[in-house]
């Protein structure tokens, strides 16, 4: 009897151990049941919007918050495909000048007005109305000539020219659909609490402090890539403004705030070792974060000098150390979330000796007593205005490093950190040689906005987007063709060619994606960034306390 028992016992032990283990693995991660209720506190480091209606003006801080209460006709999934939202189907005509959209017929704005084709018409007209003073949305619907409400759930756009980027433009929050009744109020009233179809409603705005958003109890228009349907899980959102980065992170650590944006690299790095904090990395679409070389005036009107500058500065080690490894070096003009983006690492190799030779060839061969190159008595001087609102401290330090390595080759770089208004002032008066200006837009059509020669012509306010002042008829043609063709493959190859031209002309030095890191408390579940402009959406979010 003892022998079989001796054999049996270890077997039994092993068997029961296996059973226990199997049971353990089966129960270690039970499916988390979302819980309804609670208030989530979100702290943004971006500026407080002047107006909560994203039609007016149209900047990123507005997009961040309007995503909670205003929805667009279409959205985008994480693969970059356009998916239905308030519109269910769309059909362009063969010549691309007419677009028919089928709309949902079961959606109501939170003020009771029904969502229909008339509402869409009112919104597009609101965007195009000069009194609205829309910037981003206005550009997005620039080619829409007329809007016809054919039937309550069928709207037809007639365009002035084919627009292959129309759907991408319509997916943006700045072209969101608001209640036409609400739009009829005066602008100050609509800026206070715009009315949309979104999962939350603007309840109260205490200026300089916070905005309270409450759940929309009649919500039913979640995009198809959402995790659930029906109303939002959270009772309300508190939107706080904490411009100081160190304070913002401290507030997250102390639990006074649940989610923060604009997380600084060192905070992201410390958060990886903090079990209570998680990260969501959601690069913004459109262009990458890049330095543009002003080819519209000396010395960068000379391609040799542009190439010399790019060869002279080695930005990768600086990016690695200053961003604690949270930002990956980009070699593309476009954001990494853009499917049409191409990367060209070989075009941006660092070679200070080659840089010096290029400068010699360009005629900058004499060196003055301070170590800077001169030509005909003029010093090789570059002015680099920096917007302290847009460039985080790590980026400003990176620019200082660029200044230092450019000096080794003979460039004199003068950094000018200023506030946003003065920064724009320097750009409008063409008093810059280098500049870093982020541009967020869905789709590769951003290349046309940034590098078509039409974009050098200033708007009435003085603003122009083509800061590299790139004027190349061939590029212009490619970009125009790309914006008009409906053949996806042709579009891709045209954009690839456009990027080659931009890169080969040494107009741009890409640094990294537009950084957009969210840090949040582990108790927050279901939080994601909408793939369109990477704004946060709390529709699926709930608090696991």
């Amino acid at each position: 009897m003892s022998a079989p028992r001796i054999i049996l016992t270890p077997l039994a032990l092993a068997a029961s151990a296996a059973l226990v283990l199997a049971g353990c693995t089966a129960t270690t991660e039970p499916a988390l049941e979302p819980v309804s209720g609670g208030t989530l506190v979100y702290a943004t480091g971006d500026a407080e919007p002047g107006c909560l209606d994203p039609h007016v003006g149209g900047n990123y801080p507005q997009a961040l918050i309007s995503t909670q209460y205003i929805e667009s006709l279409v959205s985008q999934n994480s693969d970059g495909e356009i998916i239905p939202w308030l519109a269910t189907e769309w059909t362009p005509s063969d010549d691309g000048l007419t677009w028919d959209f089928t709309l949902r017929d079961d959606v109501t704005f939170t003020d009771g007005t029904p969502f229909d084709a008339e509402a869409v018409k009112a919104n597009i007209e609101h965007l195009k109305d000069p009194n609205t003073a829309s910037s981003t949305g206005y550009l997005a619907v620039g080619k829409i000539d007329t809007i016809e409400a054919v039937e309550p759930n069928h709207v037809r756009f007639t365009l002035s020219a084919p627009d292959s980027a129309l759907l991408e433009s319509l997916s943006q929050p700045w072209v969101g659909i608001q209640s036409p009744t609400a739009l009829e109020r005066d602008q100050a009233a609509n800026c206070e609490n715009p009315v949309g179809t979104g999962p939350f409603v603007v309840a109260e705005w205490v200026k300089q402090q916070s905005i309270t958003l409450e759940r929309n109890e009649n919500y039913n228009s979640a995009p198809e890539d959402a995790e659930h349907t029906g109303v939002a899980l959270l009772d309300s959102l508190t939107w706080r403004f904490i411009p100081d980065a160190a304070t913002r992170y401290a507030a997250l650590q102390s639990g006074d705030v649940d989610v923060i944006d604009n997380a600084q690299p060192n905070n992201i790095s410390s958060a990886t070792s903090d079990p209570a904090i998680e990260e969501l990395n959601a690069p913004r679409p459109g262009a990458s974060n890049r330095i543009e070389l002003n080819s519209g005036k000396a010395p960068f009107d000379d391609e040799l000098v542009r190439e010399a500058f790019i060869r002279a500065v080695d930005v990768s080690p600086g990016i690695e150390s200053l961003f604690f490894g949270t930002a990956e070096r980009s070699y593309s003009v476009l954001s990494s979330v853009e499917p049409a983006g191409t990367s060209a690492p070989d075009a941006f190799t660092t070679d200070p000796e080659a840089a010096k030779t290029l400068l010699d060839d360009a005629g900058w061969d004499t060196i003055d007593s301070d170590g800077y190159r001169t030509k005909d008595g003029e010093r090789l001087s570059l002015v680099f205005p920096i917007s302290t609102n847009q460039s985080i401290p790590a980026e400003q330090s990176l620019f200082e490093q660029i200044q230092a390595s450019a000096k080794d080759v003979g460039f004199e770089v003068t950094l000018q950190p200023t506030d946003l208004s003065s920064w724009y002032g320097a750009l409008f008066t063409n008093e810059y040689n280098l500049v870093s200006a982020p541009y967020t837009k869905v789709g590769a059509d951003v290349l046309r906005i940034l590098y078509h020669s039409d974009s050098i012509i200033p708007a009435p306010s003085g603003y122009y987007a083509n800061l590299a002042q790139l004027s190349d008829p061939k590029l212009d043609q490619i970009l125009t063709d790309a914006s008009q063709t409906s053949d996806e493959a042709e579009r891709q190859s045209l954009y690839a060619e456009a990027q080659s031209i931009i890169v080969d002309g040494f107009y741009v030095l890409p640094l990294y994606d537009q950084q957009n890191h969210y840090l949040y408390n582990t108790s927050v579940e279901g939080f994601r960034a909408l793939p369109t402009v990477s704004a946060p959406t709390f529709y699926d979010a709930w608090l696991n306390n």
Partner: protein
Amino acid sequence: MTEILAGRLSHAPGAAPGVRGWRRILSNAGVIIALGILALILTAALAPQLITSAQPDAVSPAEAFQTPSGTHFFGTDESGRDVYTRVVFGAGNSLLIGIAATVVGLGLALVLGLLGGLGSRLGDFVSTRIVEVMFALPGLLLALVFIAITGPGVVTSTVAVGLSTAPGYARIIRSQLRSVRNAGYVEAATVLGHSRLRITLQHILPGALAPIFVLGTLGVGQAIVWASSLGFLGLGVAPPAAEWGAMLSSGRTYIDVAWWLTVFPGLAIVATAGSFTVLGRALNARARQEVGG
């Protein structure tokens, strides 16, 4: 404000400390420490190469965020630059702005104060109103608007801080002048038949302006703190120049990974401002004692 710090000022002429006064000043341990610190700061400002061998803008990304050690006394910053060297070179900027701003403030105050204290009733009226308006405008607003107009930089910081401190000095100078005017020895001189000009130059001005030295000493410390605040708000000197306020500001961002970026520039500001205050108060106290005021 510095008028208050100065407490009661000497009303008598020739109030700078004499030889015995200086010896008495130096006998105070606190003053000796303060003088030592200031001597160090002055060396850092005028001849930084004597106390450091590195360069303040020697960028070296591989050496970023190193803790204080034997090679880097104060550690390195986000671009691998030696913080000790940057603090040393920053002394020049901070001291320059502090002293220059005080000079500007005192100069402006002199004009206003002389106008008020010596001039006619109209001159007094005008200058008092100007001083009141300058007082009423918040100092920061003046600084912000001025910097918005001219753009940030050393000169702008200097003028902005100087403008903010001028009204305080002007009030003191004016009240000094008025009280000296009514003093006994001035009356005596008038009775003796001296010309107004001679009275003014020989008696009134020296008596009234004597405390300026003390005021200035006290004021430099405050001006340095003020200027560092402007640097903190990003309105100071342009990079890569080392300036204590700007260093504190950029250091704050990394406070959870690199405490040394904020602590050492902050200590430098406190030590410098504090030393100037100690010195100023000692000078003032001894000057008053000497005259028995």
